């Protein structure tokens, strides 16, 4: 995590951007196309693979189509969207998506900040402790889901019930009684190391001379943390929350393997519910319309988030 390069990279970027600005007005047509050349394969590939299916999704969402019933395909206008408005399970899945995503990201960030502060000291075996702490994030999500549902939260032989039994708490059937909480627990365990790594990078990027100066000025550890460390960390915390949300909102593995969205549909989030409609209900029109609604919601949230990303990444031309 070398951070001394940041200043250099920034001045460099400024130099590059002024160069780009100058070039833009003077470049001949042929040179401009020569510059676009290397970009085009990646751009065209991404457009074809990600945008065309989405346009098809919009088309499907206006039709009634069931994979089990080939004759059913016909234009129905906005009927699929009307059904979504009336679908209470969809609303519940939307609420679950928000609860699971925010619950996981906020708790993981709080724990991540705590752990990062602990790791930002020098002590014997520090790199071993860090290595142990990042391992939950490296475990395959499918492996981590079955580990939690089968070995840890299992009502009869799970480790968790045995542990709470030591202090006299009765066993709980976690994934049936508290399905959303169980999923959030597994997700927090998986994502805390991610947040910790990002915050730790932020802590280590603090200019040491500023910290020393604060100490010389008589600021205690608490004061130094609030007035110097926290503002410095803000960018890293925002970035961690944002990336966490992008990834966690699409959570599927844990829900599929830990609760299958159940009991009933109590713990289904939107990805899981749409999956159910498409691949268990074979209702292409409905699933597509839900997909479109999710994308619209994402665009609203993302347009705010992207501004933040661009500030964090310091993207300039």
């Amino acid at each position, binding site marked *: 995590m070398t951070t001394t390069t940041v200043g250099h990279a920034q001045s460099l970027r400024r130099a590059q951007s002024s160069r780009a600005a100058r070039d833009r007005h003077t470049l001949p047509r042929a040179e401009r196309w020569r510059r676009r050349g290397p970009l085009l394969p990646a751009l065209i590939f991404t457009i074809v693979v990600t945008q065309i*299916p989405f346009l098809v*999704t919009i088309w499907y969402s206006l039709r009634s189509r069931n994979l089990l019933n080939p004759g059913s395909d016909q234009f129905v206008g906005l009927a699929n969207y009307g059904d979504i408005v009336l679908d209470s399970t969809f609303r519940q899945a939307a609420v679950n998506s928000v609860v699971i995503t925010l619950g996981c990201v906020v708790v993981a960030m709080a724990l991540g900040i705590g752990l990062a502060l602990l790791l930002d000291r020098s002590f014997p075996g520090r790199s071993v402790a860090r290595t142990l702490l990042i391992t939950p994030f490296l475990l395959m999500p499918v492996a981590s889901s079955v580990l939690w549902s089968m070995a840890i939260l299992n009502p009869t032989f799970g480790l968790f019930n045995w542990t709470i039994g030591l202090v006299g708490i009765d066993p709980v059937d976690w994934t049936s009684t508290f399905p959303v909480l169980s999923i959030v627990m597994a997700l927090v365990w998986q994502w805390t190391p991610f947040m910790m790594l990002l915050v730790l990078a932020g802590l280590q990027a603090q200019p040491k001379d500023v910290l020393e100066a604060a100490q010389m000025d008589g600021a205690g550890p608490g004061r130094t943390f609030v007035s110097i460390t926290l503002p410095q960390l803000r960018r890293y915390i925002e970035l961690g929350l944002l990336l966490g949300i992008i990834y966690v909102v699409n959570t599927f593995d844990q829900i599929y393997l830990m609760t299958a969205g159940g009991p009933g549909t109590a713990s289904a989030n939107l990805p899981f519910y749409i999956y159910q409609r498409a691949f268990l209900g074979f209702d292409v029109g409905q699933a597509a319309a839900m997909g479109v609604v999710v994308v619209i919601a994402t665009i609203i949230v993302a347009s705010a988030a992207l501004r933040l990303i661009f500030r964090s990444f310091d993207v300039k031309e």
Partner: protein
Amino acid sequence: MTATAPPRDAGAPAARAPRRDPATRRRSTGMLLTTLTWILAVGFFFPVAWLAMTAFKQEAEAQSDPPTFFFTPTLDQFRAVVEGGSGTYVLNSVIATGVSTLLVLLLGIPAAYALSIRPVEKVSDVLFFFISTKMLPVVAVIVPIYVIAGEIHALDNIWTLVVLYTAMNLPLAVWMMRSFFQEVPAEVLEAAAMDGAGLLKTLRSVLMPMVAPGIAATALICVIFAWNEFFFALNLTASRAATVPLFIVSTMTSEGLFLARLCAAALLASLPVILAGWIAQKQLVRGLSMGAIK
């Protein structure tokens, strides 16, 4: 806050002298924090250790109540996993992960070049487009992908996964490699050009060595995401093209006990990524933040 300002509590240590010496107190606080750190580290790691322990148990020990902590380790479960037809799954995962990562680099390196070293116009618009595709929920496109793949007979075909994993990782890779390319000082490339090196020679012998570590870090992230991917694999493959995550799921049978075998499969499947992540921790941070954190 200037470093030359006199410390405000200059007289404080003398006043506190009758109490414990501040250095001793700082040391004992340090010991306390170190102990706390270790307890938390071991606590966070414990589920992984439990997974590994369970993989070495007999089935009955794996599902005992109370949990079995002491047992004679056995390799039976690993043997069952290796001999239990996991070969096809591993081969499929290797193809999907390896080929898609190669394709990502093949498409992504020139794109990153065109967004940093010899920039096209509207760089930030292009970057915006790439990152916005990462925000597009996968569920919104799975239905047409499934239907189209069915119509062109590409269901249960490993190359379908290769194409999708390439598209999944490409935006990430472009962002990440651009951040590495931007660190290459323009003067170095200009100097090479002045020395009469052609474009290809400059790229190969000057640029590539400088960005090679960044490309390796990018490849690592792509490998992790492709190796772990489950949603596309679950919906678009059946018997022929199924990947390792599906093998783990397939060890959960409705008859008999399976937990120890499941843990053995989960451990083996996770091991490549765990080891790679342990070795390349620094690159991991940069990759996960898409190049934003250096």
